[in-house]
């Protein structure tokens, strides 16, 4: 991969990461927020793979496998939590789930 390809890929992944951040900060639906977090993780995966290919170093790609496995575990725990929230509040909109406040 040449310099141009490196910069292009890094830019794409940075944009994807920012879209994820913007989504988490602006959306109200918990499932959508959760999807945005996954988008952030995958943007990082793209960064890691880009660097790995550019540097000709396998560590980055091994890291990506770990990130994917962790993201799957996170999805399992996250969806279970969202389900338990839905059972208690009958909604997954984050601004309606507001029992706790001081």
């Amino acid at each position, binding site marked *: 991969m040449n310099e141009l390809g490196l910069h292009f890929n890094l830019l794409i992944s940075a944009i994807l990461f920012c879209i994820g951040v913007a989504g988490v900060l602006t959306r109200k639906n918990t499932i959508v927020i959760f999807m945005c977090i996954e988008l952030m*993780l995958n943007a990082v995966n793209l*960064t*890691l793979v880009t660097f790995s290919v550019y540097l000709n170093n396998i560590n980055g790609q091994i890291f990506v496998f770990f*990130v994917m496995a962790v993201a799957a*575990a996170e999805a399992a725990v*996250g969806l279970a939590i969202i389900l338990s929230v839905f059972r*208690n509040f009958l909604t997954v909109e984050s601004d309606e789930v507001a029992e706790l406040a001081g």
Partner: protein
Amino acid sequence: MSPAELAAASPLIITATGACLVLLLEVLGFSSLIRNFVVICTFVLCLLTSFRLGDFNDVVFSGSLFSDSLTMIYFAAISLAGLFTYLISFKALKGEGVTSGAETDSLFLFSTAGALLLVSAANFITLFVGFELLSLSVYALSGSALKQKASSESAMKYFIMGSFSSAFLLYGLALIYGATGFISYAEIAAVIPSIRSQLIILGVLLIMFGFSFKVSLVPFHVWTPDVYQGAPTSVTAFMAVVVKLAAFGAFLRLFSYCFSDPILFESWSKVGWLLAVLSMTVGNVLAIQQKSIKRMLAYSSIAHAGYVFIGFLALGQNGGGEAATYYLLAYSFMSIASFGLVSLISNNTKEQYDMDSIASYRGLGEKKPLYALLLTIVLIALSGMPPLIGFIGKFFLFTVAHEAGYTGLAIVAAINSVISLYYYLNIIVQMYFTKDENASAKSELGSEEMIKQQVQMSIPKFVVILCTLLIIVFGLYNRPLYLAAELAFR
């Protein structure tokens, strides 16, 4: 497997095996007593095996785990804190609506395993996996009271904020990998002085961001009060102690070992200064107006994280790491004791509504003299008054801050300790000098139920009394704790 490898891995193997064993025992239909016994044995074995780590000064498993005195001190602290919080959670969890015993037991162990992995990590992959194992288990634990609205809300908030922050941490790790081409701490530390790249600075700042979320430094603290209030009290204790110990341990290791380059320090120390000042001030000021004691303790834990962070600015020659470790160890005892007492008191009053409101502590000095006395000692220690443990911790931190040239920071911290006196003393005043108006309206428990509860509460009570005694003893004679902190950074 070499002896160092076996020593480094055995606490991890023990906790992970214990966690699986607990689930297996539940499936096979063993009673909860055996399960509790297995969990306690696991914590004790983990504690005993962690002492062997200090014999080696090594990086094992092809550069993925540390086996040295820093890991030893943090392993011992984490497994002891895990044991104590587990003992506090005894029977108390059921009173707070946690129905599943085996799952919470195994989650306690899994998150301890994650905490150990996080502290001993020597490369970025282990760091990330440990961070996530710890986080995911604690998200699930904080939502373990399935039928309670507050519990599931706190789990959701913790989950969203936590995974948001870990994505930032991960991005930071990826950028540093890209700039240096390495993922292990030792190699990165070796090449950082020769690479002057903006990517490294950005990466370090993103990693700081991720860790600040986990240890709840302002402005990344917004989740803390809600989560601490909503989660079952013993889980809150676990979050305040084990999660903080592990995150600060890994954070300290990363910044004292991997990013210790002086020019790099220049670039993040200003941000660090701001984080410490904001955390102390915002934490202490907002704690004043809280109505719920758990919320108040949450804000006070934000302030305490700010105090610990002072140590980061004086890492290296100045002894900041030692002071931060000392303060963390001291804070762990105080935190276990305070949350344990909150759990005991709210379980005893038997009132489901506003169990943890500060108003319900009125007249406690008459009704429950022992608890009131213990809570008084713990709160005084938290406020940092001599001769208790909190005073010496603060003294060390302020001294190292001054020696490293951060006199202004030490002054801000001292002013903050004075502010914190107000809300700690407020509770003591409520307990001893305020009469409870509707005292007669309370339903007294039947004598038989009372005795049954007394027996169930004896273990948490013992733990709380032990912690309070240690607060006094280590306050008067601080040598052992100081030696431990010093050993960590030898």
